[in-house]
């Protein structure tokens, strides 16, 4: 059997609309990861030893276990706590939770890289902890982090096919359904691969541009 180009044209519209679901899941997942990652990073810097220690190990745990198993855990266990979310919402939460462990590290290094004088100046101005973070630390620490965070957005985008395991109709799931229907997996999977490749290469270019814009060169 060889590659069937007519089939490619036939399935392209369905795959393109699934592509939108993939993009949607990645963006929402990234939003969760950005918020939750900041929470982890701040908890880690907490003055309370126990809080900081628990945050460190929670991050370590989330980061060193597979996303797929975390997705299953949330998908099958949350309903027994009365939280019956749709597969997409569960998937977005799982993606966000998983990558919050990575973004937490980005936030941490970003905050650590800020010169000590900034903290001292904030203290000299009698700013509270909240005001120090809000008006002094984060506005300076976040812009240099943007490229690294952009890389994680691309990583999340590439991990969304995992959500096919809980029947989210993203790219891979749609390709699987087409394959099961037509007994041809090669064409839908190839198109999915190419769509991912194009999107990743374009976004890699974008991240490079962000780097030029936001990361100060010595």
């Amino acid at each position, binding site marked *: *059997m*060889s590659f069937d180009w007519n089939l490619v044209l036939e399935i392209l519209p369905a795959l393109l609309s699934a592509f939108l679901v993939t993009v949607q899941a990645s963006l929402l997942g990234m939003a969760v990861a950005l918020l939750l990652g900041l929470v982890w990073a701040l908890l880690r810097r907490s003055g309370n030893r126990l809080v900081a220690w628990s945050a460190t190990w929670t991050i370590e*745990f989330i*980061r*060193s*276990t*597979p*996303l*797929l*198993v*975390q997705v*299953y*855990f949330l998908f*099958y*266990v949350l309903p*027994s706590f009365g939280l019956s979310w749709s597969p997409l919402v569960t998937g977005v939460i799982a993606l966000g939770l998983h990558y919050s462990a990575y973004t937490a590290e980005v936030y941490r290094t970003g905050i650590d890289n800020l010169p000590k004088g900034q903290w001292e100046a904030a203290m000299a101005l009698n700013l509270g902890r909240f005001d120090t973070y809000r008006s002094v630390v984060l506005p300076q620490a976040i812009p240099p982090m943007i490229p690294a965070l952009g890389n994680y957005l691309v990583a999340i985008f*590439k*991990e*969304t*096919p*995992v959500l*096919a*395991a809980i029947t989210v109709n993203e*790219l*891979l799931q749609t*390709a*699987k359904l087409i*394959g099961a229907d037509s007994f*041809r*997996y*090669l064409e839908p*999977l*190839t198109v*999915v*691969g190419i769509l*991912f*490749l194009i999107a*990743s*290469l374009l976004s*890699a270019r974008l991240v490079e541009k962000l780097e030029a814009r936001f990361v100060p060169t010595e």
Partner: protein
Amino acid sequence: MFTGGLIHFHLLVLRLAPRTGGRSFGLQTEVFFFLRAFGSTHPGLEPAVTATRRVLCTGLKQLFYGVFMPPPFDLLPALLSGVVVTVQLTLGAAVVAFVAAFIAGLGRFSRSRLQRSLAKIYVDIFRGTSALVQLFWVYFGLPLLGISLDAMAAGILVLGLNVGAYGSEVVRGAIKSVPREQVEAAVALNLSERQTLWYIVLPQAVLFMIPPFGNLLIELLKGTALVSLITLSELTFRGQMLRTAMFRSGEIFGVILLLYFLLSLMITFGMRRLERRLAIGQDYGGVE
């Protein structure tokens, strides 16, 4: 739990009767067989004693599980064989990844333009698409072109090549981070290109590679869970099967997460030891 084990044991002993040829024994005889199970045997009693011995073993096993494996841990025996497959998959893919990372990483420095662009294309394709899509493509797509791999082979190949693509960037970065003067000194000493690579550049570059390789190995371990979706019966797959059989999802996936965590802690500590081993006798050229 202890009484649970004993009750279970007693039930098993009572079930002895049909196994010993339909004859039923009184409790006294049961105890007799029980005691004889470890001692010498009379030829006529042979079947009853072996049966008792077997029952005794099962009973002790039950007792052991009852005492040492309270609920979530009673799942462990069923899951551990999945861990073995996961470890095999990780090790196999790690070998492929290591080789691919060095070939592609060194290929990026090649003088031949063809080799350079081949290495770049390989890295872009495997880093630019999703590991799961690659896995599906090889397992479900390639057979249509006449190439069929079983789930284990597909998993090792795809995960290996995927992680190898990321690893090649590590190799490239580490080689670049070796100070230029080192290569210049090697040229001054009239070392050949191959000697420079093997004796000057790589021994220094390898140290830079260890921590990122450790992280990639953990990413690889996490990636092996994906192979469950192309029906390889590794840890995650066992979990799904147990879930449909037992309806204890929380415990099952909780234990599985812990097992993966333990495996990655082992990788972390192993890599740290390796780094310390390799650092012995290395001079950082005053840079540290």
